[in-house]
């Protein structure tokens, strides 16, 4: 008997880097990441550099930019820059609290499919119902029931994005369970819970990461939408959405009042979206 021929070994590629880190090397991803980090930095550090608080009134209302107020003051004499910076903070808090909750809860609910098909079907139909309710109506209901404010927005964001996580997790699990390497794991005697933790879950999480970035963008727009209608963050607490609402009557005299928060929202959403795109590409493993 002869020894099996050893295959000639070609040089291996460079050691694999983390796919997520690799995804962030594209120009698009870098731009998105820079935007998001910039907004975070401004929101976190910006207020420390200001001498005004967001609720501090300076006496003169609706002044033009200049003279100690780089963006002027609002209708009750509060510094607009200070309110924008704190508004960013509010939005960051909402996205960073609501989206992880929705992601974990939604994924968990999406995973019940591995326990029982019937239960999974019930959960998925529940998600259908949730998705059928427009976000704004949901927000109005919540604001009426629990009172408007940051907490209501967080709950609205969670309820609005949760079904998407749940559905995607559900279909990802189903597609994973059909993979040949899962069959292979059954054949080599891997216990069920290990198949789930080792072969299924890590590959499900991939999709969730990209979806989380998309949901961040959704969260910012939900906050904006609800606050613009007066159902969101309650004055005097600043938020980007409520500033857009409060500033819009003065669009001709003091355009920066509404347009600066609008610009910030656009940049934040753009940043999250670009980031989500890049992560999505990484997950697809092209």
């Amino acid at each position, binding site marked *: *008997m*002869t*020894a*099996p*021929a*050893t*295959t*000639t*070994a*070609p*040089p*291996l*590629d460079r050691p*694999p880097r983390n796919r997520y880190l690799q995804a962030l090397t594209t120009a698009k991803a870098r731009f998105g990441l820079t935007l998001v980090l910039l907004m975070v930095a401004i929101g976190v550090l910006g207020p420390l550099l200001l001498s005004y608080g967001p609720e501090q009134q300076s006496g003169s209302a609706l002044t033009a930019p200049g003279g100690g107020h780089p963006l002027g003051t609002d209708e009750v004499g509060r510094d607009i820059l200070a309110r924008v910076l704190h508004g960013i903070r509010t939005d960051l808090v909402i996205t960073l609290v609501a989206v992880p909750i929705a992601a974990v809860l939604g994924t968990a609910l999406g995973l019940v499919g591995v326990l029982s098909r019937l239960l999974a079907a019930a959960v998925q139909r529940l998600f259908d119902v949730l998705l059928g309710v427009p976000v704004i109506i949901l927000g109005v209901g919540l604001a009426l029931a629990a009172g408007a404010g940051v907490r209501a927005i967080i709950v609205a964001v969670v309820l609005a994005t949760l079904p998407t996580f749940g559905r995607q997790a559900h279909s990802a699990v189903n597609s994973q369970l059909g*993979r*040949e*390497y899962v*069959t*292979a*794991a*059954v*054949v*080599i*005697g*891997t*216990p069920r819970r*290990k198949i789930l933790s*080792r*072969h299924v879950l*890590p*590959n499900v999480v991939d999709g969730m990461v990209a979806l989380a970035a998309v949901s961040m963008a959704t969260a910012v727009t939900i906050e904006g939408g609800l606050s613009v209608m007066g159902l969101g963050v309650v004055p005097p607490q600043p938020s980007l959405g409520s500033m857009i609402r409060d500033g819009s009557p003065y669009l001709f005299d003091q355009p920066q009042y509404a347009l600066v928060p609008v610009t910030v929202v656009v940049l934040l959403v753009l940043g999250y979206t670009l980031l989500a795109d890049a992560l999505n590409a990484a997950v697809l*493993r092209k």
Partner: protein
Amino acid sequence: MITTVHNTPDGEPVLRVRGLTAVLDLPTGPATALHELDFDIGAGEILGVVGESGSGKSLTSLAVMRMLPDAARVTAGQILLHGEDLLTKSEKDMRRLRGRHLGIVFQDPLAYLHPLKRVGAQLRESLTVHAATRAQAATRALELLKLVGIPDAEQRIDDYPHQFSGGMRQRVMIAMAVAHNPSLLIADEPTTALDVTIQAEILRVLVRLRDELGTAVMLITHDIGVVEDTCDRVLVMYAGRIAEQAGTGTLLKSPRHPYTRELLRSVPHLNTPLLDRLPAIPGQPPDPRNRPAGCPFHDRCPDVRDRCTREMPPLERVDADPGHSVACWVAPDTPVQIAAPAGGERRTGRPETEVILSVEDVRVWYTSRRWPWSTEVVPAVDGVTFQARQGTAVGLVGESGCGKSTLAKAILGLQPVTSGRLTVAGREWSGADSHQRAALRRTVQMVFQDPYASLNPRMTVGDSIAEPLRNYHLAGRSQLAGAVRELLDQVGLPARYADSYPYQLSGGQRQRVGIARALAVSPKLIVADEPVSALDVSVQAQVINLFDDLRDRTGVGYVFITHDLAVARHMCDDILVMYAGRIVESGPASAIFANPSHPYTRTLLASAPGSGLTKDTGLKPASGTRPTGGCRFRDRCPVGPAANPQRTVCAERDPALDAVGPRHHAACHFAERDDR
């Protein structure tokens, strides 16, 4: 009317390609994908283009169609169709040419047919686009369907693509491609996804187009047998170059290029003496990103000389034969004959060993409940009995849908049996508790068809191989790395591969990893489902040899599922031929290949690539529904009631699996006996 026959004015070829060079833009930088290709295709000629993945054969066809992907571009050369350079044409002109003068057929017909449009409508559309009246288009569409051999074309023309079988869909694709009677038809692996009997029929259609219409055909394939049966001339491609070009007969009998020669030797063939080991080519085809300097084949070549590692050999005419050219520094001075290579006759007759798998009248029926009040039962496996012994290989052959994969699942305990007894090493799956199932899992393992899909992309090779060891606590934490190394060594992979990921490995290497993982628990039986069909041709022999070696070394038994009869003949001691969930013929491989008894086995063998296409097997096309009661094969049988109406017994009685020779059984009322 189909009357135009493409004549060759003054021997001018239909397609003349000169110096075709193309570059592929990869993330790592541009790479030469095609290098100075020169070839012609004449009218009424089928040119076979043979090569492995990455050899550039598909890229060549796409370049001719001017349909290269965005990442690829032609940088030099000419593509002359009837003397006109396609590379200088505008996209608008090309669109017109593609419909009228160039036709293309791809591997997967379903992907190219509109699922919501009737086949006839799609055909008529392709006709009217190029200025035919509706009435003309309607008659022509019917004519085309008849031309490609669709039975009852008048009725089938208004069916949807999903109502056609794979082979029939491919015929429709060919009908569309030849709708305008193109002078050049490109067929890119047109039969790879099809069963052998259907493959033979499709190839016959191509040959007919050549003979009746004088169409020039460029047939891209990886299968030497297909080339042998259909092609007039062959182009052997390797790493984006033409390695050798010759008439089919010359190429198969006296190839000059070492790659061609070694490839021909390494592929198991139905009609050559059996060898103990296949003479495999070492290594694997080069990565397009990283091709070696000099001759691209030099690192795998047995005849390599110093010059080969430095200088690229040009494609030069072999003096004796004007149609034969080869790109090799060594070849022109050393004409070789493909003789049976030394290696010794294959030993026959293995000692009677322990029975490890016993299948007794096993049925696996799938029930689907479409409505609460109606269930549909599909008998995927319908009363199968056989045994497998330690150290032997049982080959399961048959067409897709015959139940062989379902049977494999049942053997692996992945699919419960409906009735019958299935025991592995004396134990039964049905009724086993979780503890017993775990013990059973250790005795029977599986090797999958697609080694990429069966390895978790997130796990290193080492982790994948270690997983079964961990599951059964076969190695302590400190011994795990050593055990993995040992397994890698057993399948011929260097130990450092333990830290790499599946995507960094070639197909053959991945399959070795899959085999190592199956071996980890020292199983008594390995079920291998088409384990080499996804691999490059030059790598298949290596993996087949590995299976052989492991059997000799560990005494493991195999159940080998394959559609490739030549591979089954080489690998297996016993063969089971399945049709419609039943075994129609079983026996020693030698008996079955020498004296096929069941008409279905005979058709399979006659349709196998490399057996020639001249003889008509008489196989009737499958109808939508399988007959029940009596012989399941009778509606397609070349000797049954479909051909001989007086043989009514086939419909009346179910044929039993009766002996036709020593250990040789066939289930046919008109089976041929070994001593006939």
